[in-house]
């Protein structure tokens, strides 16, 4: 809780949000801070409420209580498209690329100003060279990995200050996970990222900070380097399915 006072360094502060879906109380007082220029990861079991937290920030499932402060402005309760236009890019967990649109059209659609894509095309295609090759293909002809690349690339078309990325490694082959990790690492140089990632190895290598969500509450937060040492905490909240983190050298 110490960090919340240090608000000028936080690009995003989520303060005690309550989110309901229908009558279900999904998030109960979740708080998350994301420092400018950093990667923060949301950890937690399946169904803990990580995706809902991102959607609440994005305005897709608006919170009933609590505040979301982005870049010094309260954004909770605003319509999603307005929130996006403040400079937030969203990469959803289901790789919602548009199947009826070509790769190029998917990217074009994400423009907020004319010329957004032209300005960032070189950068995007350097990160994901496949996309340039596939640019005329429709979304429904892409493989899972290609769709994931496109979903991330789409968030890079406009000038976003913050990216919300939901499980970018889900269902990807190991080589592609590596490529995705490299891409996200490069993105950090220019933007701030709030990541949801079940792959603990990937999460621990990318993020500086973590927040653990459990059963709709944010129960723990701190430096990733501390969490890696804390096997008990990992077991308690992230389950036995996650193996102990392997050192960086072993992965690469």
């Amino acid at each position, binding site marked *: 809780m110490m960090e919340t006072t240090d608000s000028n360094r936080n690009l995003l502060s989520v303060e005690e949000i309550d989110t309901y879906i229908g009558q279900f109380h999904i998030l109960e007082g979740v708080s998350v801070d994301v420092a400018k220029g950093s990667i923060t990861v949301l950890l937690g079991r399946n169904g803990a409420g990580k995706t809902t937290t991102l959607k609440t920030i994005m305005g897709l499932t608006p919170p009933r209580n609590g505040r979301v402060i982005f870049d010094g402005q309260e954004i909770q*309760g605003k319509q999603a498209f307005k929130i996006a236009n403040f400079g937030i890019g969203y990469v959803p967990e289901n790789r919602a690329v548009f199947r009826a649109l070509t790769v190029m059209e998917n990217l074009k659609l994400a423009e907020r100003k004319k010329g957004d894509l032209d300005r960032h095309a070189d950068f995007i295609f350097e990160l994901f060279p496949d996309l340039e090759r596939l640019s005329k293909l429709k979304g429904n002809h892409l493989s899972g990995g290609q769709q994931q690349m496109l979903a991330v690339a789409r968030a890079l078309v406009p000038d976003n200050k913050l990216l919300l990325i939901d499980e970018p490694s889900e269902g990807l082959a190991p080589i592609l996970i590596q490529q995705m990790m490299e891409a996200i690492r490069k993105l950090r140089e220019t933007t701030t990222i709030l990541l949801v990632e079940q792959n603990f190895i990937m999460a621990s290598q990318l993020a500086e900070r973590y927040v653990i969500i459990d059963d709709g509450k944010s129960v723990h937060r701190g430096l990733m380097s501390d969490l890696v040492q804390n096997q008990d905490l990992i077991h308690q909240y992230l389950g036995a399915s996650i193996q102990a983190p392997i050192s960086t050298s072993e992965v690469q």
Partner: protein
Amino acid sequence: MSHNSKKLLYSVIGFLVVAGVVFGLYTYAGQEAFIRTTLSGLTLGSLFFLVAAGLTLIFGLMDVLNFAHGSMFMIGAYTGWQFYTNPTFIFGVLPLVLAFATTVMLIPVIKPRLVRLDLSEAWQKRLPILTYIAALLVAVLALVKFDILGLAKTAMVAVTTTSSNPLAELSPQEPLLRFLLRLLLLMLSGAFIAVGLSKPGNRTEVSAPEPLKKRLILPVVLFVLTIIFTLVRESASEGVLLMNGNLRFALAIIAATLFGFLLGALIEITMIRPLYVRSFFIVLMTLGMSFVMRELVQVLWDPLAYQMVRPPLFAQPGRATTIAEWLMNGSSTISIAGVTFPTYRLFVILLGVVMFVFVTLLMNRSRLGMIIRAGVQDPQMVEALGINVKRVFTLVFALGVALASLGGIGAAPFLPVQPMMGDQYQMQGFITVVIGGMGSYVGAFVGAMILGMARAFGDYFALKLQLSPTIAEASTVIIMIIVLILRPQGLFGKKD
């Protein structure tokens, strides 16, 4: 790969079936009857398409079944017919509507101030209700003794007595002073509405406003239009009636389409938008609205059927042998491969094809089309990209209604203009959408043409074999059933 070869196989089978049916009909009916019936089918198909295109776009993007679509077709026909035969009614009512809209559109200007008012929560709820009541009372006061029925009847007279002097039917409008008073009252009424809609005291609605200049553009434009149209109330009708008939018809088409667009936008914003969360109510609401529109039209123009006069380009007796000759003489019929066919119906076919091309370009070449194609799949994600999806919904609904309205005025010169004229087209429109596949405009076009042909050839066989003419109507349903059995998602529908 097997998916693609399956697709190819279906296309080949489809092509063979179509070719077989066409060849069979051709040899059976003979060239003359075949061409005539085909052209009739295309005419009907064009109208079906104009209705079905809107239905399928609206359903595809918003999951809304618009049961008022046929009424909007009918409204388009009435608007165009009024404009063409005697626009006294239109020009008499237009300034009133504009005056009201002027002040309602002040919302973006006054809202930033009003939301900052210090009001208790009880008053935040009470005040809008009070303003709406006030608005209603003032509006009633504004329209006291306004002879709207008299205005409406002017065009009916014009129909019954087709005199050589079109101006003979023009009746004078109200004295200017009394009319100005009505305008002022309506502006006041609109202002009350604007205050209510601004949610005074509701601070959560605060958002960074655009510059004042930008927010003032629309109200100022509307105000200027109000003044202009007030001053030309009488002379505008005269001017329109003295115009070249073809030009007047072109303007009537534009007027009907534009009115359909605005009506559609208004209906979407005020009545459909609050109901997206309960889509079943939308069905009931649009159904109810279709009854209201029909009754309204009956009150204004009586439950009669009118025949709109065909524009001069299609009205001169005589048969043209070439298109150039038709355009020169304005012949009412033209000879196509030895078959005499009404030129106006060729125009309707052209209208349908042009609109199909327009919709195709819109969907594939424009940003709006891109948004629609994406929104059909996942409107939430489109919104998360920073696109105002609500506004896109409004636009698509308005566009759909505009197409139906265009179909209505297109049909007016050869169908009787009457309150029920849209019902049959709505039914056929829905069947077209089912055959073509929900949400597919290509499907709507192909489906419309198939249905048009089925109707035309059904009529032909009914006549030739002395069967009951209902066989033509039944044929469309039979086609729908066959398609549903073979391809439940429709010819061009995506599996879901």
